[in-house]
């Protein structure tokens, strides 16, 4: 590990000032950043620990019914907050399907949003990676790319964004509140992560030194609370990233879909909102046929970036499934295996 400066600011302005120096990185729980530093994929010269910043660890309910979540709120604390889980069950389910209990107990909101890709070549210093080292090439192309992107990728980068949390957030029009050297601003979560294009190293819309301070879910997002699901396919039942995942949320009235929200995970460098598919469903009868059409449309642009055509088929099927489960209704209690297509099974009567 390289030598670096370690700074522990006590106020947001102090943190932002400290981060003005190039080569700085904010450190939250470190479950992602420290791993990357250990393998050398991230070599910040200045690490700014934000975990002592005051006032960023609160869940605040807004007068209009929306919620504002401080960036330091732990993933578990948010998922288990009763009112939050009731109002935005699809977000809680996505959170509880991620990582492991230990990681969720540590991981923060901002850290989860800003976690880096799991592309193996990004982590492997011997490999060429445009995202890690602009212009060096992309070893994932033509390499072991079974799990890479099928939407929005470019020949410069085919990585995916790994977060589960971000998928329903994108679907529900979440907003990220940011403070930076030039003051505060708001970014729609859907535009926080960037598609790679020719500049995969520009991973997010954050400018140098900008700090996420909070996440907001608008009041309208609560209108889906009765019909919303997150479904995640993975290669073991827990402690594994999504191969593909989908969040689906519906507002249904007498069998007619009034509003629909769909986002996919594990398919692109950002959580993938499928707006056209949503539009197709709105005003339609909630039928298997309509869901299949929506899935078709959601993936119309998809193409394999390597040995991963199966992900398109899987993504198609999981959108359909997430929609039909959403239609069935949000489960009364959090499923024992959150986001699993399997209902509770014997031997698994706790969240893992």
């Amino acid at each position: 590990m390289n030598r670096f400066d370690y700074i522990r600011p006590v106020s947001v302005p102090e943190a932002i000032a400290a981060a003005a120096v190039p080569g700085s990185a904010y450190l939250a729980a470190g479950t992602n950043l420290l791993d990357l530093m250990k393998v050398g994929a991230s070599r910040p010269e200045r690490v700014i620990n934000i975990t002592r910043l005051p006032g960023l660890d609160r869940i605040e309910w807004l007068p209009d019914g929306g919620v504002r979540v401080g960036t330091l709120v732990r993933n578990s604390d948010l998922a288990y907050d009763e009112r939050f889980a009731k109002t935005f069950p699809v977000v809680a389910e996505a959170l509880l399907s991620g990582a492991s209990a230990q990681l969720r107990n540590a991981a923060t909101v901002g850290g989860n949003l800003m976690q880096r890709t799991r592309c193996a070549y990004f982590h492997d210093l011997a490999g060429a990676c445009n995202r890690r080292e602009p212009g060096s090439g992309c070893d994932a192309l033509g390499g072991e790319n079974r799990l890479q992107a099928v939407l929005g990728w470019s020949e410069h980068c085919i990585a995916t964004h790994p977060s589960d949390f971000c998928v329903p957030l994108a679907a529900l029009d979440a907003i990220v509140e940011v403070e930076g050297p030039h003051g505060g601003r708001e970014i729609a979560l859907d535009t926080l992560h960037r598609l790679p294009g020719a500049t995969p190293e520009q991973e997010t819309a954050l400018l140098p030194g900008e700090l996420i301070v909070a996440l907001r879910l608008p009041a309208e997002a609560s209108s889906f609370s009765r019909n919303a699901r997150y479904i995640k396919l993975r290669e073991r039942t827990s402690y594994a990233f999504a191969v593909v995942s989908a969040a689906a949320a519906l507002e249904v009235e007498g069998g007619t879909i009034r509003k629909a929200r769909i986002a996919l995970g594990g398919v692109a460098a950002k959580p993938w909102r499928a707006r056209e598919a949503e539009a197709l469903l709105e005003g339609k009868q909630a039928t298997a046929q309509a869901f299949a059409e929506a899935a078709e449309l959601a993936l119309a642009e998809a193409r394999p970036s390597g040995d991963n055509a199966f992900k398109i088929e899987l993504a198609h099927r999981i959108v359909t499934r997430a929609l039909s489960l959403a239609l069935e209704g949000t489960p009364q209690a959090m499923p024992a295996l959150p986001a699993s297509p399997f209902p509770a099974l014997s031997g698994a009567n706790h969240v893992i």
Partner: protein
Amino acid sequence: MSSEIAFPSPQHRRHGSSAGQPLTRRDGVLKVTGRATYAADNHPEGMLYAVTAVSSIARGRVTALDVEAAKAHPGVVEVLTPANRPPLSHDPDDKIPPFGFRVEVLQDDTVRYVNQPIALVIAETLEAATEGAALLNPQYEVESARTGLENGERFDTPAVGVGAPSRTAYGDIDAGLAAAVRVTEADYVTPPQYHNAMEPHAVVAQWDGDRVTLDMPNQALALSCAAYAAYFGIPAGNVLIRSPFLGGGFGSKAILNGPQILAILAARMLDRPVKLALTRAQMYGPVGHRGQTWQKLRLGTDGEGRLTALHHHVLAATSSFDEFMEPAANASLPLYASPAILAEHDGLRLDTGTPGPMRAPGEASGSAVLEVAMDEAAIACGMDPLEFRLANYAETEPGTGKPFSSKSLRECYAEGAKRFGWSGRPLEPRRMRDENGFLVGWGMGTAVFHCPHFPAEARATLRADGTALVETAGADMGQGAWTALAQIAAEALGLDPDQVELHSGISSLPDGGIAGGSGHTASAGLALHNAGVDAIARLAELATADPASPLFGAGNIGVEARSGRLHRRDDEGRSESYSEILARAGQAEVVGTAKAARDPAVAEAHALFSHGAVFAEVKVDPDLGQVRVTRLVGAFAAGRIINPRLVRSQYFGGMIWGISFALQEEAVTDRRTGRIMNADLAEYHVPVNADVPSLDAILIPEDDPYVNPLGVKGVGEIGITGTVGAIANAVWHATGVRVRHFPIRLEDLLVNQRDVTSAFGN
């Protein structure tokens, strides 16, 4: 740390003999309270830290290392490279028998696999050593990596595994195939897998003149001492290995590896203790793995579903510079009655680290494929898979005709099938659904494992206070050896296990043999048993020769040891306690010793195997291909069971490994570079709790008068065999999709399912 470890166990209660009782682990409390000292927990005064720099290419040469930069880093003390590596007394390219491998110890600048050590950086802190290694910035001359069938170099090999024959033929395979009504033929692939013991390989080496003390996890103490002694040019007695606890080994800690030798060398060179602990990623190369296999099975069957021929061909990967290969085809030798069996292997040289024995080496990968092939053949014959196996039940060892020392496989089939509820299983796939519309499938497989026996020695000391100390240099890898071995010794000594102190895990004790091949309890156990018997015999001599003893003159009639007393065999009422006998003889103790080995005549006359049957239920999402194993029932017969609690745990562990093999484990290798792309526990998947359903392991009673005087077979590895095939067969039964490679992935089950009516949607 103390050089000897004692395990008190005050809570144990005894009912007659302690052997056969489900005692809890003697070391359990130490482990769960964090007081067990593992190798890397040792910090001798003045200790330095070593970190290996490893190659990022699979084949070529190191042309430059920036040693200056590394040395300039604060805290770095020394950098070992091929240029300054002190000499070894034994050529590292020359393998030390019986289990030696060629070791990579900077003998030259050649690179033969990814993660090969190319330098060792020694520093005052771990951080400095790590950064020093990073600063070496190696430059390479790269040659193309051979990573698969397309570019690997095929070769004929005389031996596979540890000296097993690469080709065994019983009967005439061509005639058998020609006589068949049906031939079922298919190709299968198993992936490279890595042991991934929880505790990484580590050593703390301390020299004192020409004596060296090594704190390291080790499955084969005496053999390792001899081998280290050879490399360092000192007598074997000058090497002391302390290995009180191992955080798993699975075969990878029975073999000497390059990194540890380099650390020991550095400790001598710098005259300070040196610690080396590999990182998880560094364990994907120099410390062994289960090599990839490509297997072809041809099963000929007659009109009644009896095998006429069983042909198992295996192409097994190994490194470019050594020979260990999965003896996978040999899994087809001992199990099914076929007049013709051909098991043969070819080698494939790849630019990888050398494979090594990994839990059920050969049996795991061979059984996985054999059991799937048997399922395919059963289906071809229109038979239930269990019925098909019973039709091919081997009453004597196939090929040799030798009687089995004991074989209770029929009972395993029957009990397992009953507990599982196998009867009524539809023959066709995709016939069962659960209440939620998920596809349900049932599959089975036969488990089998051989029973090796390693020579071992032990000492038993009866003490004046009526307690005993028993000693043998064995290894507890977590399987519970300390507990089971103490139970065996206690039984021989006629004592309660609470009164028996066991010293083990240190090489200065009598040679406890190898903790491998599922043979440790039998091997070290027999030595302890014999030592106990010897101690009792000596005690009896004292008593029966002493006119003041109630046992005087009982020499011919004999005495029995029970509850700390010797009883006259023909008169229960005449007895004397051990303490009384010793006190009167004026002796502080009496010491029994023993060497134990298998009687070669018995081994020659019998086929020695443990058996079992595993039944699996899986549920599969019909649209998404997601699989869950929902039930696993195994029934195993492995001779006498010393401790059913520990044995059941071994079966569970094996069966869970079977889930792993069937559905999760695979080292993903970049085909272009040979780099392993998932060399960490986040991406190299092994099951988590949520993957493991309710497990059932049935212990089928079995009395074996031949396998060894204790009647003990082995239980450590058999659980994997049978299970992998059972799960794969259940997946087929659920979906109708036959997957012929492992692990079975989501995409494998998406094939051809669009047209199948879904249970979902409306």
